[in-house]
């Protein structure tokens, strides 16, 4: 039971020679909420498809709830609820019929939860799926996933087309109901505010590579924006220095650890450190992705702090 809910090693997937995911090492602790962040086309959905056995990895391995995704994907699917990025279901079935259809597959199905979530999300259960609004179609997916009584919820962009009130309700349901049952939640998103609100762990993916994964609190406590005034201050990137921006005489450094020590070094070089401020998830994400782009173009060679030791 101590094995992580999801663990991947060197996971890679290529479609017709195009690399979608490259060497991903992911660790999702049991009972946690893990936000999987990345831009469109970063590799989030491909990673999820590999975890669910919908596609085969080109290299590497993945275990979900202790089961190998290649050989034991039925056992994984028995214990895992999934909300797809594409929120399409059988158009002619009503939400009630979709519940009836899904229920039969899962001995752990929570009948009592159906009414509860249908009321909470205000889902018209007697209406055909094709007649529902995009938001309500997403809600039906969520209802089916939440009622499954799963050990693991894998949600691919779960808040697509949802209004702010429903997003709020969903976040509360995930953070309270699902976690109370000991369920692990792995959700992909590019809505950073949502992730920041409920996630305990985050992983950043871009261009198919996992840039970093860590406990969100650790990231917030370690990443700092240092603003300093001076001349000829260092511009080199390193594992500690994620990015440097220069505007006139002002230098803005994003550092990943020991901000005070780095600021002291700047002061010794004659700089005046004007501020050391913590960063939000958005800024961290932007800095990581920006750095990845510069690395990709060959302008920088800094490597990121390995994250697995943080767990």
């Amino acid at each position: 039971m101590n094995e992580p809910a999801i663990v991947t090693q060197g996971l890679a997937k290529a479609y017709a020679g195009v690399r979608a995911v490259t060497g991903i090492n992911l660790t999702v602790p049991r009972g946690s909420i893990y936000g999987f962040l990345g831009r469109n086309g970063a590799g989030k959905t491909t990673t999820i498809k590999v975890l669910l056995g919908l596609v085969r990895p080109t290299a590497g391995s993945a275990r979900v709830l202790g089961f190998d995704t290649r050989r034991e994907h039925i056992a994984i699917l028995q214990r895992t609820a999934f909300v797809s990025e594409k929120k399409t279901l059988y158009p002619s079935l009503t939400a009630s019929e979709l519940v009836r259809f899904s229920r039969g597959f899962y001995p752990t199905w929570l009948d009592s939860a159906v009414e509860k979530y249908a009321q909470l999300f205000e889902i018209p259960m007697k209406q055909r799926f094709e007649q529902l609004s995009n938001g309500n179609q997403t809600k039906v997916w969520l209802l089916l996933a939440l009622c499954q009584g799963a050990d693991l919820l894998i949600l691919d962009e779960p808040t697509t087309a949802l209004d702010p009130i429903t997003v709020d309700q969903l976040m509360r349901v995930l953070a309270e109901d699902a976690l109370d049952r000991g369920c692990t939640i792995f959700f992909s998103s590019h809505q950073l505010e949502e992730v920041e609100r409920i996630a305990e762990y985050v992983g950043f993916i871009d261009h198919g590579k996992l840039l970093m994964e860590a406990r969100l609190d650790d990231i917030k406590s370690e990443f700092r924006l240092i603003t300093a005034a001076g001349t000829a201050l260092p511009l080199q990137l390193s594992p500690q220095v994620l990015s440097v921006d220069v505007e006139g005489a002002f230098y803005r450094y994003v550092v990943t650890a020991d901000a005070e020590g780095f600021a002291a070094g700047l002061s010794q070089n004659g700089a005046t450190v004007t501020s050391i401020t913590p960063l939000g998830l958005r800024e961290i994400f932007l800095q990581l992705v920006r750095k990845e782009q510069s690395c990709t173009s060959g302008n920088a060679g800094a490597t990121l702090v390995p994250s697995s030791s943080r767990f």
Partner: protein
Amino acid sequence: MYFWKCWRDTRAFFVAFLIIAAAVIPLTALVCNGTGIMQEGFGRDAVVSTFGLLMTVITLGLGAIGAIHEFSDKAVHFLFTKPRSRAYFVWIGWLVGCIEVLGIAVVNLLAGSATLAFYHPGQYLSAFFGALKGFDIAGIFIYGVFVYGQTYALTAVLRSGLKGLGASLGATTGLWAFAAAIWARWRLHLPIPADHIGHLPVALSNAVWILTALLFVFGAQLVVERAEI
């Protein structure tokens, strides 16, 4: 539950053709009653021809709209993340269609024989049942199962009901045309589905064709299992 879903998807088609299967011979007889056709042997030939035509149409249709066609649907993410093997979905879908084909076939034959019995009591009914062997009703049914399996598999390969239907129709007519050409040119008998194969007994020939039909479903299973969604 998937059985229910497959039934729900195909029931409109099934009911429509069940009605057609039940009504076509009685209605034809009603229209033709009193004309010379009734006296000139309307009966066994009409029933058997209708049965063959019906089998072709429903097997092509059910193969294309059967469960496998949702493989091309965006909801396949939903289906293939259910805790069942993909082989389960392929075979359940095929089985539902097969049962429907069988249901329509039985209704059509019963309605046909009842009509003959009504219009020609004693005279044609015994002749009809006696002729079942000669016309190889079982062979026509096996032909239907073959075409159904072929359409089902092609729908899986092409990931489209419409393309599967077109390809299957093309393959069926193409095979007939090819066999006819071979016969015309070299007087060689190329067995087409449900034909007797060489000097094999009828039962063995039929068994070979049934196995071939099942091979189509195995083929569909392989395609679906290997597909990346």
